[in-house]
């Protein structure tokens, strides 16, 4: 949104009326109201009677509350200008030091005819009581008084000109003759209305002498009725010209125009308040910017924290899953180890032989002449020089084992015994068959026999 650029509202405080003006993008806005209902009410009416923007005011006093004088200071008297002005007002019933604020502007006079340049003071005094009354009213209706000056001095800013100029500005019950060079105002004096030609002529002569010129060929006049202007010009032998731009109210227009304020009468407390307002305004702007930045950073930071916390929660849930996986892995690994160990047990421990077959082979090998009294079969691991456990751990298939078979019995004779042993060996099941002992014995029936002890080994997996 584009902000409208408008200056402060210029308010000319005359004896019987208030006149307002404000320059903006749409040109100059003007209004005027009478002072019949008091200053406060009139000011409210003035501000609401035209589309004025903002609550910043520039006040310009004119009429009986203001005194304007131009003084030519002696050479080197610029330093004591204030004293000279105060001396000038000493004894004045309305504008003495106790009753009026004194303001002045010191200008240097242009040098002419070999004379040294001298100083000129334009002195303005505003009645303290009137000023206080106006300021109080302004405070009460909460407007910001940006500057207070003499309206007559401000009229010089209403339009610009070049070279030596004289301007006659009439507004209401007061007229003012201003003279200056280029943008510099060097002379100002108020004139009673209706304007009398001799007074005006004397004032013009005074202005010419102050500006050190012989006179003015023409005077730019505004606010002067043509019925008055014609005869007056005739009497004075001067020509009145219209200003380069139409200005209905030169005082208000000058106040509304930005430029150098020659004498600012803004009360010190108002200046303090203005500074405070400025500090407050800057502080509020800074606080707002700061708050916006903090808010933005806070929102972004909070969002970032929330996003990080979401990520954290996500990671935690993933970590939980991973932990569950780890736990499951431990269980599955344990189960796997157990299953592998069980599989290994089956591989290692499952006999590589059938005991029934061995028993059959022994039974079948024993012929008619053999009687087995006792038999003992022992299945034991084959250590191979190592411990059984180590052997078990190192081997991958069925563990090597040795079957020790011990047979005690009786044979009809030695041949039958040997045939039995050879038959055992011939089965291929035994790696070693040995007749450990044999002796001839007499059997109960008177028949001789052979008592034997056979040891056989069968290696198996």
């Amino acid at each position, binding site marked *: 949104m584009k902000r409208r650029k408008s200056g402060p509202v210029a308010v000319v405080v005359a004896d019987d009326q208030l006149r307002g003006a404000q320059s903006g993008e749409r040109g100059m806005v003007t209004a005027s109201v009478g002072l019949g209902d008091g200053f406060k009410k009139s000011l409210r009416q003035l501000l609401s009677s035209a589309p004025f923007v903002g609550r910043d005011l520039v006040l310009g006093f004119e009429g009986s509350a203001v005194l304007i004088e131009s003084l030519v200071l002696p050479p080197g008297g610029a330093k004591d200008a204030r004293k000279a002005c105060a001396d000038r007002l000493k004894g004045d019933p309305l504008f003495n030091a106790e009753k009026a604020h004194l303001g002045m502007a010191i200008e240097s006079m242009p040098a002419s005819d070999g004379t040294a340049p001298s100083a000129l003071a334009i002195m303005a005094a505003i009645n303290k009581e009137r000023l206080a009354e106006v300021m109080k009213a302004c405070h009460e209706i909460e407007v910001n008084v940006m500057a207070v000056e003499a309206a007559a001095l401000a009229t010089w800013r209403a339009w610009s000109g070049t070279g030596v100029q004289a301007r006659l500005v009439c507004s209401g019950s007061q007229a003012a003759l201003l003279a200056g060079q280029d943008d510099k105002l060097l002379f100002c004096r108020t004139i009673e209305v209706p304007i009398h030609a001799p007074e005006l002529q004397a004032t013009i002569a005074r202005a010419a002498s102050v500006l050190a010129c012989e006179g003015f060929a023409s005077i730019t006049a505004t606010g002067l009725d043509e019925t008055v202007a014609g005869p007056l010009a005739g009497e004075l032998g001067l020509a009145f010209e219209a200003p380069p731009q139409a200005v209905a109210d030169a005082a208000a227009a000058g106040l509304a125009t930005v430029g150098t304020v020659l004498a600012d009468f803004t009360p010190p407390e108002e200046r303090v308040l203005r500074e405070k307002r400025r500090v407050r305004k800057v502080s509020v702007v800074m606080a707002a910017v700061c708050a916006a930045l903090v808010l933005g*950073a806070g929102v972004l930071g909070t969002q970032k924290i929330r996003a*990080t916390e979401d990520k954290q929660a996500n990671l935690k849930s993933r970590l939980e899953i991973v932990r569950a996986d780890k736990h499951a892995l431990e269980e599955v690994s344990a189960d796997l180890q157990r299953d592998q160990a069980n599989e290994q047990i089956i591989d290692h421990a499952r006999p590589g032989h059938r*005991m029934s077959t061995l028993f059959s082979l022994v039974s079948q090998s024993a012929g008619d002449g053999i009687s087995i009294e006792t038999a003992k079969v022992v299945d034991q691991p084959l250590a191979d020089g190592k411990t*059984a456990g180590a052997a078990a751990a190192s081997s991958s298939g069925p563990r090597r084992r040795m079957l020790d078979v011990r047979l005690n019995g009786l044979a009809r004779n030695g041949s039958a015994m040997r045939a039995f042993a050879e038959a055992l060996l011939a089965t291929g099941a035994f790696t070693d068959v040995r007749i450990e002992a044999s002796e001839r014995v007499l059997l109960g029936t008177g028949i001789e026999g052979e008592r034997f002890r056979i040891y056989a080994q069968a290696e198996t997996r």
Partner: protein
Amino acid sequence: MTPGARIAIVAVLLLGASAGVLYPLHGSLAEAQTEVELLEADLARDAGVHDLLMAAHAERREVEQRMSERAFKLCPNTPEAEHEVESNLQTRVEESKLQSVKMDRRNETLDGTDPSLVFELLVDGDGAALKRFLCSLEEMSWVTRVLSMEIASGSNTRRINIQIAVMLERKS
């Protein structure tokens, strides 16, 4: 005090207040980020766990498949299963026409590594009955092993002492 100084003081105060508001936020953010980094490090360290788990599952299924395809299996290492084996063995003794005199049972670690249930049977019977019993024993689905067999002297019916080991599953 000049307006510039007042504005500067306000600016400093605002700066302090902003820092006071934002610092805890910064702390929380830093804390959260640190924890996220730790969690990410933990996750990165355990990145391969899932694959390991899948591999372990697959390997276990293979082992179980191989085990199920075997003709013999290990006896569960539980009292109920041991009791069942004992009953089964007793039945087989009777079916083989052997006369059971005594049957003892004890847990033993065969060859120092393999847990087993060792039965010591004292039976009476002839050779044919013993042969039937041995055949019957070999038909059992559990891995069994005759550790020793001792046949005492006698006429037709003899006393036979048999030690049979039934292989037990290894406890996890």
